């Protein structure tokens, strides 16, 4: 299955992936409208320290602890992609407790959010990958 991979050697630490993620999931057509004056809460997050930086987003694990531990059945697999049913989710945060990589986070709407590879927003393909200026984030089979 195609997954998002990051090569920290190429990461510039520019945080563009975070902005494009927030934009892609905002439902807005205009980036300025979507992000101006907004404290973004992206599903991909850059870690950085002492000249090292890299972006972290859902690994879409083959043995997904978040899905298996989900108390409502809201987190589920669709062809290997871990998706969230926001109608079912009650925001108990068991997935935040169990995700080994810290890739599930509270959403601004009160439940949780995570990377769904932009399959369920207007983008259709990962915006973080498309807009990474140095190709540090890629979407491929490995």
């Amino acid at each position, binding site marked *: 299955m195609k997954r998002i991979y990051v090569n*920290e050697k190429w990461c510039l630490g520019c945080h563009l992936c975070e902005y494009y993620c927030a934009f892609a999931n905002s439902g807005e057509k205009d980036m300025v409208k979507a992000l101006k004056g907004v404290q973004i809460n992206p599903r991909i997050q850059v*870690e950085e320290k002492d000249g090292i930086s890299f972006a972290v987003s859902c690994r879409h694990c083959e043995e997904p602890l978040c899905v298996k531990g989900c108390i*409502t059945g809201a987190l589920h697999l669709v062809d290997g992609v871990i998706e969230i049913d926001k109608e079912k989710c*009650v925001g108990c945060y068991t997935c*935040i*407790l169990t995700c080994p990589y*810290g890739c599930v986070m509270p959403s601004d709407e009160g439940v949780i959010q995570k990377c769904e590879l932009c399959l369920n927003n207007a983008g259709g393909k990962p915006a973080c990958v498309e807009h990474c200026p140095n190709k540090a984030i890629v979407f491929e089979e490995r």
Partner: protein
Amino acid sequence: MRYVIIGNSAAAIGCVEGIRQVDQEGPITIISREKYHTYSRPLISYLLAGKTDGERMKYRADDFYEKNGCEVMLGRTAVAIDSLAKTVLLDNGERVPFDRLLCATGSKPFVPAMEGLESVPVKHTFLSLDDAKALDQDLTEESRVMILGAGLIGLKCAEGIAKKVKSVTVVDLAEQILPSILDTAAAAMVQKHIERQGIRFILGTSAKCFTPSRAELKNGSAVDFDVLVLAVGVRPEVELLKNAGADIERGVQVDSHCMTSLPDIYAAGDCTQSYDITSGTERVLALLPNAYRQGEVCGLNMAGLETSYDKAIPMNAIGFFGLHMLTAGSYVGEEYVVQSDSAYKKLVTRQGVLKGYILVGDVARAGIYTALIRDETPLDTIDYELIKEKPQLIAFSKGKRDRVLGGA
């Protein structure tokens, strides 16, 4: 291969999904005392609060049984297991034959003997959907509710009904709330938050005796109530297996493949005890993620794929009135504590590994801590100072990061 599952909650569903990873053909029969499609038990408090409903609290989609080739007997109680003849006797006299059996009977409320309790006309336990529906029937805007027990169940109940009733008073023998998951400092913080929602606590004492609408407490005070909720604790439901001759301690004893002492009979979920790697003891770890995984391991083994259930740890995600807390492991060891007005963090290390944590308020990325505990990662292989600051992958070695993020 004929599979029979007693129970219809997380462990049972995990078992079905485990079996079907290996065997798509063998018929599965699910026997459930409750009459409902599989539902998420922890959601009963959210149901009372109006934050979910009967449809959304279904643990799996409507077509789950059909898709997985399950025959479901709802509203049927298994009354005996014949481990030699390999049959389960039902309450209607029918015998269901099996080749492999899973017992996922869960837990039952523990109600200690208390003087006069039988005279209380309106009292409820709070563990099942029927419990929640019955309680809801008895609540009005004028109800004064007394909840006995300030543990996870009692407090989720308090939160669920708080907006629907006149008052909620929670009484517990322990000096603090949530003693199974929080230390005293974190408990005090959470208690204050819950009290701000109008819930009253009387701690460090218990009920001496009851009259129909009044509890006399051992500390000399009294609580008048219209509705009593008994949430003192739960016990593993082990009777079926006990009577069948299986080994039982605190809960059903199972081996690393989750098989009981009786051949071809497995057990999973809240009725079992398992080995907690953080305390090094056999404990009843009655929590949903463990139940699912244990059930799944049972299913895999029942269908012939040898799989071990290991790395079990206590862990909890819970929140009250918007304040979230995530906890895991055991709290015996060297402590690192950071507290502010809105957040609390405790990390506990022992023998060079992270053994437990408590996070209240700021719970972001806590699963990184959980993984350190579960994997027993030696702290000298990571930058523990960075981990203390917050959960982050930059604390790990470049090699580990490349494997996780780069698929190397």
